[in-house]
């Protein structure tokens, strides 16, 4: 499996306490979003990082003689800009990296990091799974093998926005690595849960 999908997990680790696992519940998979989903932000930050250098170069050419007297304010502005950019990048990275999907033997828990000190956790009982669809679209997604996983459920979905994936009855996760294999794994876990319920 992809390195973004962790299969060897100690479910008793205190780090998983916030998931409120049930007595016999075990985390089978920990899935992180594909790094390609972070590429757009990274390119934006690199572009923004180059921008002051061009400005400085242009200012240096135009006001070559008088630039020294403005050096304090220029230095402060550039330093402040890069500090802001680094903080923005780190925040964006946390938003990307801390979006995690936990697949246990009973549930799918989608933890969405939504900015500074804001997290949204949605969970879906594997019994409620009706259909799982993997969507891989475009060159980048096909080449890097990532895409969207849409889990059709008998219950609530992840968002109430009817224009976007995640409408009621659909549990949608974007930028998932190896979505086809994950879809098969989820359906397999679903069958295990249903058959164990039937046997009881």
């Amino acid at each position, binding site marked *: 499996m992809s390195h973004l999908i962790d299969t060897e997990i100690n479910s008793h680790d205190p780090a998983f306490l*916030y998931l409120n696992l049930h007595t016999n519940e075990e985390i089978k998979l920990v899935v992180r979003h594909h790094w390609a989903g972070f590429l757009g932000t990274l390119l934006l930050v690199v572009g923004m990082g180059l921008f002051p250098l061009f400005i400085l170069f242009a200012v240096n050419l135009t006001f070559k003689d008088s630039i020294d007297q403005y050096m304090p304010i220029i230095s402060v502005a550039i*330093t402040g800009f890069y*500090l802001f950019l680094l*903080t923005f990048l*780190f925040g964006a990275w*946390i938003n990307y990296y*801390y979006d*995690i999907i936990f697949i246990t033997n009973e549930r799918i828990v989608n933890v969405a*990091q939504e900015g500074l000190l804001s*997290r949204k956790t949605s969970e879906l009982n594997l019994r409620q799974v009706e259909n799982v669809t993997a969507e891989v679209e475009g060159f980048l997604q096909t080449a890097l093998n990532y895409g969207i996983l849409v889990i059709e459920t008998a219950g609530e979905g992840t968002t109430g926005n009817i224009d976007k994936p995640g409408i009621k009855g659909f549990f949608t996760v974007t930028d998932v690595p190896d979505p086809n294999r994950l879809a098969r794994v989820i359906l397999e876990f679903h069958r295990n849960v249903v058959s164990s319920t039937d046997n009881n």
Partner: protein
Amino acid sequence: MDSNFFIYLGYGIFLLIVLVINLLYFFQVFKYRLPGDASLSVLTLHIILLLLVLFSGSYFFRT
């Protein structure tokens, strides 16, 4: 008052805000990181880059 004083003051306030935001991010990393993940490596890299920008900025500000 020297105009540099206001530059120092504004910069100081800005640094304080950046520091507080970063401390909140650090708190979040330590609270939600999972065993064996890349959080601490990225956090270390982030701190190194912050210090690099801060000190190189201070160096140019001095001249």
